[in-house]
């Protein structure tokens, strides 16, 4: 029976001809678009994660504390929620760091009559403290410290990157969604044509008392096959594009986002795209309606 149903589905697919091919192409385009946006979004997510890992929040102190007071202050800061690690940076150490950063221009710093840099606490946020909301609360807590003169953190642009990542995901899903609706309608049209072409078979099946699922299942299966073919083509196209384009974009990605390479879709997203293809096709097959004459 299963062999018969699959055989009928393949026969139906051949009958649908060009319309079935159009449906497969549309499914490929819609899932390819979603996949491309997911790929972009995933790599932006990697960049966000990398930069969050390197994120530092600096608490500039009003006055340089004694060694004991600095140790106590670091301990207090470490106990605050959202703090991963905290390190005291004295005024001298801060000046030395500045000189290192300035390199051959360090002589400019040596000309200063007094060290203008304040002592500070350098904080690495914990994963909780590196989220946009966690970082906001951490900055509030650190600003409330009586010793704090100013608090600075590079969370804003990481947040912007995170927002861009979300935007890319939403645009991708919306764009893919529109194409997916078109794909469903095309599969439905293909299946309706098949229904018309196989009306004699359907009539005979109903006359001999075939269960309704035997009549409908080949239609659903042929939609499912179209969907899986579309998804497979989309994944192959994405894979080939990634293989050839990713190495060329790698230097740009390193400079712009700090990523060594562009990752391909993770296995769960590959499976999700395949399932989405099957689902789109099956839904198209399910939505097709023919006349029931007998």
């Amino acid at each position, binding site marked *: 029976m299963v062999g*018969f149903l699959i055989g009928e589905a393949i026969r139906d697919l051949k009958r649908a001809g060009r319309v079935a091919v159009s449906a497969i192409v549309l499914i490929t385009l819609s899932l390819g678009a979603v996949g491309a946006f997911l790929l972009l979004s995933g790599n932006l997510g990697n960049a966000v994660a990398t930069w969050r890992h390197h994120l530092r929040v600096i608490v500039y102190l009003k006055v340089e504390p004694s060694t004991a007071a600095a140790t106590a202050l670091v301990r207090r800061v470490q106990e605050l929620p959202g703090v991963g690690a905290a390190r005291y940076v004295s005024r001298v150490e801060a000046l030395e760091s500045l000189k290192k950063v300035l390199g051959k221009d360090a002589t400019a710093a040596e000309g200063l009559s007094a060290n203008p840099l304040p002592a500070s606490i350098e904080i690495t946020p914990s994963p909780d403290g590196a989220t946009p909301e966690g970082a906001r609360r951490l900055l509030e807590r650190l600003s409330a410290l009586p010793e704090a003169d100013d608090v600075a953190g590079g969370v804003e642009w990481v947040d912007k990157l995170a927002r861009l990542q979300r935007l890319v995901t939403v645009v991708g899903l919306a764009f893919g969604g529109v194409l997916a609706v078109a794909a469903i309608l095309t599969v439905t049209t293909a299946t309706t044509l098949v229904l018309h072409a196989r009306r004699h078979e359907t*009539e*005979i099946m*109903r006359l*001999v*008392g*075939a*269960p*309704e699922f035997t009549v409908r299942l080949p239609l659903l299966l042929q939609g499912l096959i179209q969907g899986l073919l579309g998804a497979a083509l989309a994944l192959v196209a994405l894979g080939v594009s990634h293989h050839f384009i990713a190495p060329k974009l790698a230097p740009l990605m390193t400079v712009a986002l700090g990523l060594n390479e562009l990752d391909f879709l993770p296995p769960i997203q590959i499976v999700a795209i395949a399932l989405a293809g099957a689902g789109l096709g099956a839904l198209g097959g399910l939505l097709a309606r023919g006349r029931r004459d007998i």
Partner: protein
Amino acid sequence: MIELHRVCKVFSVGPIKVPALTDISFRVAKGEFVVIHGKSGAGKTTLLKLLYRGEVPSEGEVEVLGHDIGSLGLRGIAALRRHLGIVFQDAKLLPGRNVYENIAFVLRVLGAPRGEITERTFDALRAVGLHSRARAYPAQLSQGEAQRASLARAIVRKPSLLIADEPTGNLDDEMAGEIVQVLRDIHAGGTTVVFATHQTRLAASLRQRMLVIEGGRVVKDEG
């Protein structure tokens, strides 16, 4: 086997009501051969459609093989039809499949085992004398052969009741005679047969119970 009680069928064409059958009552016992005779448009096809639930009665009750036709759902319709064999004036063979595949198709959609499909298909083809034409496609068959293939498809499941709606309508006398002989053989095997025809001489030659329909009413029940 079959029982109709005060059955009426009215078709609505917009606001206009067209009566097709009026106050029909009769019984058919198991193993009978009943000829439904009437001119074209008398209501024969509508009456037969009521028997396989191609239509529902507007009034009255139709019971076939213990099923109340008026209250059958999709599953009930399928269950009823699995015990029926139906043939039409048009053989309704699937053009893309050969004779063997047309008949085997019925068994395949009903999930019969592969070995059983081959055996029963050839049994049915032998019963109608068409086994030598198993590989022929419908376009290669004469009208008589096509109708015999249609009969083979109807009997391949060994139905309790065979409903034949003008199967000889398109055939010359010789071919019609062949079909009628096949129907007699099927009846002799124990199948109840309801055979509709507009051909008066053919109907009379059968020497079976005959229901005569005129204007949607049974006007004679003889034999």
